[in-house]
């Protein structure tokens, strides 16, 4: 009895799509505001720089020509000019610190601001563009304060969706070919589990909450999101979530049944990074290694900012791909989360500081 109800399906789609749309709208709003605030500032600064430069050149020309070319030699001329240039250099250094330059194209265009807004709420934060005005900085803080939870929600949502799809794919396509025996055992396990579910108190919310409490990072609340989603009728995931520590299952079968092997998860992440790197190497004139490095640093949200995609016309596409990549990363973390926790618990047991992980009772029956 899944959610074949069209009403439910529609509502579910709306939830996923609605969240994604909210994120897009949020990004657009941020881009517009940042462009308004910082773009103006940048334009003013550039004008100022231009003025400074023309002033300097005029001064030099005046010194050179008007004061007389003949009774000056190079040394004395260069003395005077050097001072002027030093000032100019200082001015320019200041503008470089602020990130403004009249040499490079305007940075706070709409697409540039959109890219910047994305770096804010994904917490990548390259820093090649940063708000300089006080209002810009204040707005940036507020924007981040609301945008980061929003993004986490979206990522968790879409990530769990992707995770389900990948598990489904893996189970349907790869499992029958790889391991036929476990497939049969898993059917039996499923039956057993359904019986158990009927008979026992399901502690899935307990387990789910304990998952959350173990690692308090945002991406790890996918299990909660799954729990939420299961109320829409996905019984499969209920089993997945609720029976992670079910002591009716063998350890191996449990691993094969519900968790992808760690290698597959890592490979998936690696694959996506390679694809992204290939994309960027087509757009930019970096080496492939540099592109890969850039995609890794970006997708892990470290975001140094030493390598920045420069071509403005691809910024929207880059933003989209980066967001997609973060979803993939979230999915990988989701898929590997239960494995990591299980191995941590197992390690704790081996060392002797935690009880045996499989001793928790699965159903609510009391044994005196």
């Amino acid at each position, binding site marked *: 009895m899944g959610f074949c109800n069209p*009403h*439910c399906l529609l509502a579910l789609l709306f939830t996923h799509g609605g969240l994604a749309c909210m994120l897009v709208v949020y990004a657009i709003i941020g881009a517009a505001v940042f462009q308004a605030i910082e773009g103006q500032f940048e334009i003013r600064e550039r004008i100022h720089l231009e003025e400074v430069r023309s002033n300097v*050149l005029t001064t030099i020309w005046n010194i050179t020509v008007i004061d007389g*070319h003949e009774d000056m030699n190079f040394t004395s*001329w260069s003395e005077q000019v*050097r001072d002027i240039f030093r000032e*100019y*250099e200082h001015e*320019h250094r200041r503008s*470089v610190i602020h990130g403004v330059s009249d*040499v490079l194209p305007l940075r706070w265009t709409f697409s540039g601001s959109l890219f910047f807004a994305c770096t*804010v709420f994904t*917490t990548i*934060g*390259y820093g090649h563009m*940063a708000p300089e005005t*006080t209002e810009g900085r204040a707005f*940036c803080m507020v924007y*981040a304060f609301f945008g980061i*939870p929003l993004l*986490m929600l979206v990522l968790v949502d879409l990530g769990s969706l992707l995770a389900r799809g990948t598990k489904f794919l893996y189970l349907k396509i790869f499992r029958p070919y790889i391991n036929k025996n476990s497939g049969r055992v898993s059917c039996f396990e499923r039956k057993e589990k359904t*019986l158990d579910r*009927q*008979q*026992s*108190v399901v*502690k899935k*919310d*307990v387990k789910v*909450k304990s998952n*959350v*409490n*173990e*690692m*308090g*990072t*945002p991406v*790890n*609340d996918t299990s909660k999101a799954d729990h*939420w989603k299961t*109320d*829409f009728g996905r019984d499969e995931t209920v089993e997945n979530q609720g029976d992670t520590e079910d002591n009716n299952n063998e350890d191996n079968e449990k691993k094969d049944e519900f968790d992808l092997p760690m290698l597959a998860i890592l490979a998936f992440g690696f694959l996506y990074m390679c694809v992204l790197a290939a994309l960027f190497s087509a757009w930019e004139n970096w080496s492939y290694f540099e592109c890969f*490095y850039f995609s*890794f*640093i970006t997708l*892990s*949200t*470290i*975001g140094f*900012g*030493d390598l920045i995609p420069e071509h403005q016309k691809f910024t929207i596409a880059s933003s989209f791909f980066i967001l997609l990549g973060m979803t993939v990363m979230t999915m990988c973390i989701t898929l590997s989360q239960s494995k990591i926790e299980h191995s941590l618990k197992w390690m704790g047991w081996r060392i*002797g*500081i935690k*009880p045996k992980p499989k001793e928790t009772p699965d*159903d*609510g*029956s*009391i*044994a*005196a």
Partner: protein
Amino acid sequence: MKPSDEHRPTNLMRAKERRQSIRVLITDQFVEPEKKRRLKNTCRTINKFFFSHLGLLLLLVVYLLAGAQTFHMLESEAAQSEKSVLSETRKTMLEILWNETSSGYEEWKKQADIWTDKFKHDVAHNENHGLEATGLPIESHWTILGSMIVCVTIITTIGYGHVTPETIGGRIFCMFYALVGVPLCFVVLADIGKLLARSLKSVCMKVDVYLSNKSADRRRRSSKIRNSSKHLDVSRLAYYGVCDEEREAINCKKKKRSKPMSESRRKSNVNGGNINRLRTARSKVGMRLNNSTWDSSTDMLTQTTPDITRSPLCNNIQPVVEEIDEVDGGHFEENIPSSTEPSPASEDDDVSVNVKIPRELLNKLRLDLTNGHNETGYGRRDENGELLINEVILDLLRQHHPVKHKHKPLSYSLSCRERGSRKSSIATNQRRYSAPENRRRVGFSSAISQSVNDRHNSTWKSELCSNAYNVESPRSSLASDFKFEEKDDENKKREEENKDYEVPIIIVVLLLTLNNFAGALFFYKWQENWTFFQAFYFTFISLTTIGFGDIIPVFGGHPSVLIATAIFLLFGLSLVSMTIALAQERFLKQAQKVANTIGVAKRTIKRRQTIRRTRRQARRNTLMYGIDGNF
């Protein structure tokens, strides 16, 4: 495959395991010499320490140091070979400017433009690579301390970018370092965050309980004044408190909303509703049931020696069961005020059953008691049968109710009320335990039956089991109120206690802001040319791990300040992770509520239908059960 069959072996197995483990424990304690045991304990303590919070922190520090050393080795030479071309550009530019003066203004201007651009590029290059105007590095960025900062920014994913690895080897190492370091850092931060969250929750809960106790005390005091005569000692209350006819009489007297009389009520009314007879019956019942007499005139229970004669009316003793509607969260309330029903005019009080026990089990218990008083096989037979029942129930409840409130011991009261009538009595020392939401209500019957099975070899147990098992009580059984879990750890117990308490989000946000302000103050005091707003901005950007890198504190060569920065960052980040952990629970609960109200959740719809169906069924069924078999 009968479900109950499947359960028994597992339970037996588990019991066996437990017995074995207990046996092993005992033998260990007695057989092993003292020294060995102490050594084991110390080993365990050491292990616990190392893999506890402090141990994880140490691990993190070691990881950082290792990374710093590696980066220093990989990057420092490459950095030193960075040279500035600025001075050369300057020279060339000046020469050209001098030489081009003769070509006329236009030509000169063009050349000047080209060369000033180059000049600017070089200035920017110098600036970005930390080279001074003279072309010499201000300080090497890849000292051990500098590399440490870079490592911190990598594993916390802040990533300022003021110093980045340039060599290929450095970049590859950076990627692998991040691959292992980021999850490690997350684990450590989450660990500390969880610790912080737990302590915050317990503090808030204590404050909350204190405040609510104060208000409850106030309430209780006021209600006590009102209902002093009606207080009954809860633990002595008979489960069967009131006869059926008596209840009828009471109800007639109370002018309740008239309900269509159910079958058994009609039948029992045949016997007559004589009030006097009822009174005698009740007093007899009272005598029989308690160690005390129920003086109906004054409504007081007095202690007397029991008169263990069987009342002729004991056949008509019927428990009044509370048919409970859907548990609204399954709350036991503190101090249910007996506000409404027992008008002073009524001469007696209703005995309240607040424990919700499925009908069938109830019937069986009653049957057992009234039929063969000394043969329930509970093992702890007393002359007063009901005490036993009470005790059993209380025992079960106590055994399986995990929460022991620190301030008040839990005690249970039994209250009954008629269906459709509001609660009509108080019970003292009562507390409601709010169950977590989304609990499936299954299995209390099975639970009770299992316990009955295992503990007492009643003759009727199999019948009870099967009956109880096959009954689906979608309405609240106790299972929905309590959790029948075995807890090994104190931690788990505490977690269970704290689980449902939601720290108000205001406090969490306040904590975050305070943290931010503290950091801002720290940086403002330390950096000379920063305004407070700049310091605040920097702290915010760092704590959210965005890490632009446009403002970087100048580490003026004081390693202690550097270390302080690193510690502050880690603490701040763990606070952030605590916030996230606390907030997301609430957020998802809210979202779920929203989803439920939208009507998307299929289960809600289904549940509503089930509830409606069972309500309909229950209305048709009777509340009162006659011993004559009409139940």
